[in-house]
């Protein structure tokens, strides 16, 4: 890859997905593009980029952007965060929602571990009001990631990253070296391919939105726009979950950090006070 190639990839990532392509790490870019080049029938990454320049075909552009933005994820990424969701956030929402469903959205769900983790956490949550219903949604930019997420099949390595052994045998079935999430969890999740830069106003309301592994890789100018669009979908007592190291200080006033360094942000301080009382 030439410096011009890297600049082209960076420009595509920024324009199409708001993602900062790390051109200072060409080896990382190569490791992501070489399987794509092979799949598309090109001899090399250079040939792939050559075709991109020659045709500017939309399908190929998206395939490249998807490969560049592929997120890595694990089950229960951030144990304390999921413990707080299970023990505090979901029971509190359950008290207030009563009959209406609690809607939870994993907004960059990658290969599905996050949305399945929150679904398991909801199953394990203590003190839910009788009749509490949950709806889970997973979305990602990458069609390939979504296919894997939807299948709910994980390798032995994947299920050993973050998943306690008791949760594994309770919520998964073993077929040789593959572990399948149990149908009762899988069937609770709805999926869709979604670019977070698109207009999100028609998505409806969500009580909990998880936005993890996203902001740190995003172009600074777009971070605020995405957070703002998601916050607009939260009711007053809704919750946004980002990575612990993400900086959302631009939203001070709109978002208040929940106690403990969990990356959980509450929208309305009075709800927080009521929850603590």
């Amino acid at each position, binding site marked *: 890859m030439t410096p011009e190639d890297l600049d082209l990839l960076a420009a595509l990532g920024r324009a199409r997905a708001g993602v900062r392509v790390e051109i200072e790490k060409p080896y990382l870019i190569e490791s992501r593009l070489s399987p794509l080049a092979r799949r598309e029938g090109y001899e090399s990454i250079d040939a792939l980029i050559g075709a991109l320049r020659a045709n500017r075909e939309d399908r190929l552009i998206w395939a490249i952007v998807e490969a560049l933005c592929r997120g890595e994820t694990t089950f229960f990424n951030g*144990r304390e965060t999921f413990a707080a969701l299970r023990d505090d956030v979901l029971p509190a929402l359950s008290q207030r929602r009563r009959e209406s469903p609690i809607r939870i959205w994993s907004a960059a769900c990658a290969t599905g571990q996050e949305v399945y983790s929150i679904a398991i956490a909801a199953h394990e949550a203590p003190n839910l009001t009788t009749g509490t219903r949950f709806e889970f949604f997973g979305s990602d930019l990458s069609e390939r990631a979504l296919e894997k997420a939807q299948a709910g099949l994980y390798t*032995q*390595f994947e299920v*050993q*990253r*973050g998943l*306690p*052994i*008791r949760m*594994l*045998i309770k919520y998964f*079935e*073993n077929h040789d*070296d593959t572990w399948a999430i149990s149908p009762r969890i899988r069937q609770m999740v709805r999926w869709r391919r979604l670019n977070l830069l698109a207009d999100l106003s028609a998505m409806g309301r969500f009580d909990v939105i998880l936005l993890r592994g996203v902001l740190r890789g995003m172009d600074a100018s777009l971070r605020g726009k995405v957070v703002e669009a998601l916050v607009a979908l939260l009711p007053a007592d809704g919750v946004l979950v980002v990575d612990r190291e993400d900086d959302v200080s631009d939203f001070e006033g709109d978002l208040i950090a929940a106690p403990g360094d969990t990356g959980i942000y509450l929208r309305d301080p009075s709800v927080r006070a009521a929850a603590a009382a």
Partner: protein
Amino acid sequence: MKTCLVVDDSRVIRKVARRVLEDIGFEIAEAADGMEALAWCRAAMPDAVLLDWNMPVMNGLEFLRNLRAEPGGDTPKVVFCTVESSVDHIRAALDAGADEYIMKPFDGEIIQAKFAEAGLL
């Protein structure tokens, strides 16, 4: 410093596990089978045991049952580390008092994650 007894009949596995566990701050003792491990525990209970299943003399499951019956034998956190990956094996291990379970092959990240899960880090 916390102590971990690494029990495996493979010297290579013991060496790999020792390196990973020393990196996350454990002092390591080694045993090549369940009987040897039990002798170690009777002399000084470790904080953690990383335990293979299939070994000569006394296997991991028998060791665990014996350990839990010893005075003070309920305190060590026991993490299985074995090629056995069926749900039946995992259930049997948990029923016998295992705290976590690693399916081989493993890497350092998995050991670290499972030790954290068992409350050891």
